[in-house]
């Protein structure tokens, strides 16, 4: 009986998370278009629905009805699996995310590690998509994505380790509980490193060299269309929300805050971070590939190590 319940619970959670990510993607794309428009003194989509609110819905219908094009010489299996392998881990990473106080699909005792490990599967999907397209631009995009992802994963993990050292737990829920002072105050270096590396792992500007339009068309998703193409966007926007929510959990004290209920605070902080990510994208110029690597290895990695040292100092002071 309990086994059946566990199974159904898991299934229901899967459905909920999947629709959540789908909803985020649709919403964020609209928000991003509006935000970018304001930054560039435009007004963005206005024609579909009131204030253009239904624009993404229309786009989704269009994408679903589009022809699914596959290059003749593409590797069929890898081409089909690539987008899936990119999007599914992004959805999976939501499992350990507390969405507000106490709302979490599953509080794993290794939640933080889970959140760091599972999205790393998605880079396999990116590389495969790039390779399988049988197209030079896609191929370059895939290679760039892999190199970038592997490089930025190291400072990212190290910046999170600092939090784990201070909190003394790997459970996302416990970290929110023990966080009396937001860790962004105690570990500012780690917070900044985490944010920068998260942007890089999502392949968003200014770190979007794997899909740099002016250089390699659209990178690894050059050859994709229709639903498969939209899966990449699900991964990006789902990941963007997840990274922001995770930053809220780790560095901003989760749902802690005066007056408003925890739930509201959590969403406020997360959405503010999402806005910051969009702001950064539309403000900063793109990095060059070598600058990107130099930043990761010469700038962020030492910073993350300093943060780790700082974490031990904090631990010493707190105890």
């Amino acid at each position, binding site marked *: 009986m309990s*086994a059946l319940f*566990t*199974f159904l619970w898991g299934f229901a959670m899967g459905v909920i998370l999947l629709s959540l990510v789908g909803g985020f993607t649709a919403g964020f794309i609209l928000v991003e278009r509006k935000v970018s428009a304001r930054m560039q003194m435009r007004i963005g989509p206005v024609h579909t629905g009131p204030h253009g609110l239904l624009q993404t819905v229309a786009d989704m219908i269009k994408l679903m009805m589009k022809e699914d094009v596959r290059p003749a*010489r593409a*590797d069929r*299996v*890898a081409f089909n*699996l690539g987008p899936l392998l990119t999007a599914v881990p992004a959805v999976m990473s939501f499992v350990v995310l507390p969405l507000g106080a106490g709302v979490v699909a599953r509080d*794993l*005792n*290794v939640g933080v*590690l*889970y959140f*760091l*490990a*599972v999205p*790393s*599967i998605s*880079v*396999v999907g990116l*590389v*495969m998509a790039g*390779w*399988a397209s*049988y197209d030079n631009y896609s*191929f370059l995009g*895939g*290679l760039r994505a*892999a190199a970038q*992802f*592997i490089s930025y*994963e190291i400072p990212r993990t190290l910046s999170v380790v600092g939090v784990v050292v201070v909190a003394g737990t*790997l459970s996302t829920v416990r970290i929110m509980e023990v966080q009396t002072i937001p860790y962004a105050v105690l570990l500012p270096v780690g917070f900044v490193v985490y944010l920068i590396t998260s942007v890089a792992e999502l392949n968003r500007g200014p770190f979007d060299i794997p899909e740099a339009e002016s250089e390699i068309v659209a990178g690894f998703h050059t050859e994709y269309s229709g639903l498969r193409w939209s899966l990449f966007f699900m991964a990006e926007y789902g990941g963007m929300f997840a990274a922001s929510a995770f930053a809220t959990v780790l560095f901003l004290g989760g749902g802690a805050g005066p007056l408003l209920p925890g739930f509201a605070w959590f969403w406020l902080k997360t959405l503010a971070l999402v806005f910051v990510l969009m702001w950064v994208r539309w403000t900063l110029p793109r990095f060059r590939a070598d600058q990107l690597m130099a930043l990761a290895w010469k700038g962020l990695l030492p910073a993350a190590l300093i943060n780790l040292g700082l974490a031990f100092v904090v631990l010493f002071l707190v105890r």
Partner: protein
Amino acid sequence: MSIPAPADILFWFFAAAAVGGAAYAVTSAHLIRSILAFGAFLTAVAGEYYLLAAEFVALVQIFVYVGGVLVLMLFALMLSTPGESQPSSLGRWSPAVGVTAVGVGAAIMIAAWHTPLPVVKEPAAGRLDHLGQALLGDHVVVFELVGVLLFAAVVTALVAVRGERR
């Protein structure tokens, strides 16, 4: 024989997936499919770890193998196989080697069959704490030496791919 618990069913499901993935990875003529099957194998093994109450090891497996080694393999494949995936046929010695491999496997199985193993114990409570204490307590020297190992591997890989200084 009681009804198998869901964990047992899952365990054998993952075991079958691991063996199937390994078999496909080893025999497939398409390298990219080999690598994909290897990824499935790694994930299935991580699932086994999870069911064996080793969550930390399971995630490290995903982190290191799927997020690292698998990507490196794709990298190596992409850089060393220009154009379409070339079918990679098997060598000539397959039957003899097959018999040897099966012999080794069968010998271990027979030995396992005749060896009574201790009863499986309940996983320790607070096992993450225990793991941390083991890593920085009894096995601290292993923990430190892994650093030396990683350093050695980095230097080795860099020297191996360095350019020619003619």
